[in-house]
């Protein structure tokens, strides 16, 4: 490798390490802030225990079965609801999107139903299912179905007319047209929908645990708050945040992987590498 190129690579690496270190310093600074504010008495430690106390509470809590049950309950509700929404959104979206007539007929209804806040369904879910997992699923599915559906509809509409005509004149049947023309066009839109739905599904899963006491992290947070175990409560809040970060990063990674062939992502990767 020529020396000029070598120094360039090294410069790129140090630049990346530097950005990484900057981010790390931000996180450490945030932790220090959370440690110092209650210690100096700016905020009473009864309301906000020092960061170290929260961490101790977290590690202690992690040795209990309650913690792992709560975690798996939340993830289970999230995953089931998310998968139902994505499958339903894709199937219904492709069906509606492939027909001009259906699209026209359903447009106003979709625009009408979509902004209805899913939390409005809480009382109904409670009456029908109490605090079982089905209550959570009603809310999660109602909230995360729409982003998927809308994105699939956009995507199907975006199909290049020339490509569609070409496929038709080459005699591709309906299935092959969906597979080779509609699907690749709609995929980037679908991935956006999936990314939004993954985050929304987590918000609603936790909402249901906070508001209607279904099992999971949200219920642990309200229980520890009313029980006065403030440090443990913050520990659960941090865990909820970490799950959120993992869901967001995971969805982004999935998007990049699935769309690696797509010009928009190829450009992104090229830029990140340059």
């Amino acid at each position, binding site marked *: 490798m020529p020396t000029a190129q070598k120094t360039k690579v090294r410069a790129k690496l140090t630049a990346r390490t530097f*950005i990484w270190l*900057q*981010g*790390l*310093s*931000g*996180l450490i*600074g*945030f932790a220090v802030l959370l440690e110092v504010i209650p210690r100096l008495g700016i*905020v009473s430690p*009864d*309301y906000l225990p020092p960061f170290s106390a929260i961490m101790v509470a977290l590690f202690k809590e992690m040795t209990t079965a309650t913690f792992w049950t709560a975690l798996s309950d939340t993830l289970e509700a999230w995953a089931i609801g998310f998968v139902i929404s994505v499958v339903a959104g894709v199937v219904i979206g492709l069906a509606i999107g492939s027909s001009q007539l259906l699209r*026209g*007929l*359903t*447009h*106003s*209804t979709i625009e*009408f139903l*979509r*902004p*209805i*806040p*899913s*939390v*409005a*369904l*809480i*009382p*109904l879910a*409670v*009456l*029908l299912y109490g605090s079982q997992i089905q209550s959570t699923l009603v809310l999660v599915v109602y909230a995360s179905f729409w982003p998927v559906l809308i994105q699939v509809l956009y995507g199907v509409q975006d199909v290049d007319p020339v490509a569609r005509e070409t496929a038709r004149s080459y005699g591709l049947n309906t299935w092959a047209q969906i597979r080779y023309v509609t699907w690749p066009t709609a995929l980037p839109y679908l991935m956006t929908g999936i990314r939004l739905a993954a*985050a929304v599904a*987590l*918000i*609603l*899963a*936790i*909402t249901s645990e*906070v*508001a209607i006491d279904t099992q999971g992290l*949200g219920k642990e*947070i*309200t229980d520890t*708050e*009313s029980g006065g175990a*403030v440090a443990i*409560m*913050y520990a*659960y*809040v941090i865990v*909820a*945040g*970490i*799950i*959120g*970060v993992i*869901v*967001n990063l995971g969805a982004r990674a999935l998007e990049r992987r699935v769309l690696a062939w797509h010009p928009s992502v190829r450009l992104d990767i090229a830029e990140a590498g340059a």
Partner: protein
Amino acid sequence: MKKSMSPLPRRVVVALALPVTLIAAWWITSADSQSFYFPPLQTILHTFGKLWFSPHALSNIVPSLWRLSVGYLAAAFLGIAIGVPVGASRNLRNVLEPVLEFLRAIPPPVLVPVLILFAGLGNEMKALVIVFGCIWPVLLNTVAGVRALDEVLAETVRSYRIGRFARLWHFVLPGASPQIFTGLRQSLSIGIILMVVSEMFAARDGIGFVLVQYQRSFAIPEMWSGIILLGIIGIVLSLLFRAFEAWLLGWYHGLRQSQRAG
């Protein structure tokens, strides 16, 4: 293009056909419903009129909407005010981004119990919950929008020595506004969720509060009418938002359209 421009009456019929059919179907199938949980639509609508078109109803609707608008507007202002400097400075951005990503990823409803500790059960708590929940999408989208500003324009603005305020008002904010609006739209639905959840959890008034009261006392038609009211509020707010966006971002959508056509 011409083909889709069907005459107005036909478009109205197409738009209304399905909603009318669905409501009619609900009306007819529920007409002699004996089911306790699914009363006839007629009963629900009758209750709706009685409940929500009375002066008494305002004592629950007004506090809810007041808390939502105070919290949402404060979050929008703070999000943009913090987002602009963070987006403009590369170092600040690199330092803060992981922290912001973490704060954004905390599902906002967990803030309800946390803020009860700090602010009790009053109005402040609910407004604060909404501020804390709504600020992150606005903030992060403002950062992304400011970061992606056109570099040639930025250089031009700089070389003409355009003042700070004029630069902000005529260049930075308009340039980042499409992204900012994406954040504002996400925040609006989070704000509505938090308004309802915080009232269900701890309140003396508000739509979320009465909704839970109805459900607990098995006042089923009243509960359904509350659900419909929340649905209508969601729809009206999203229409208002869209009108505001169309008014403020009309230039941008026009630009996009002409770019696509060209």
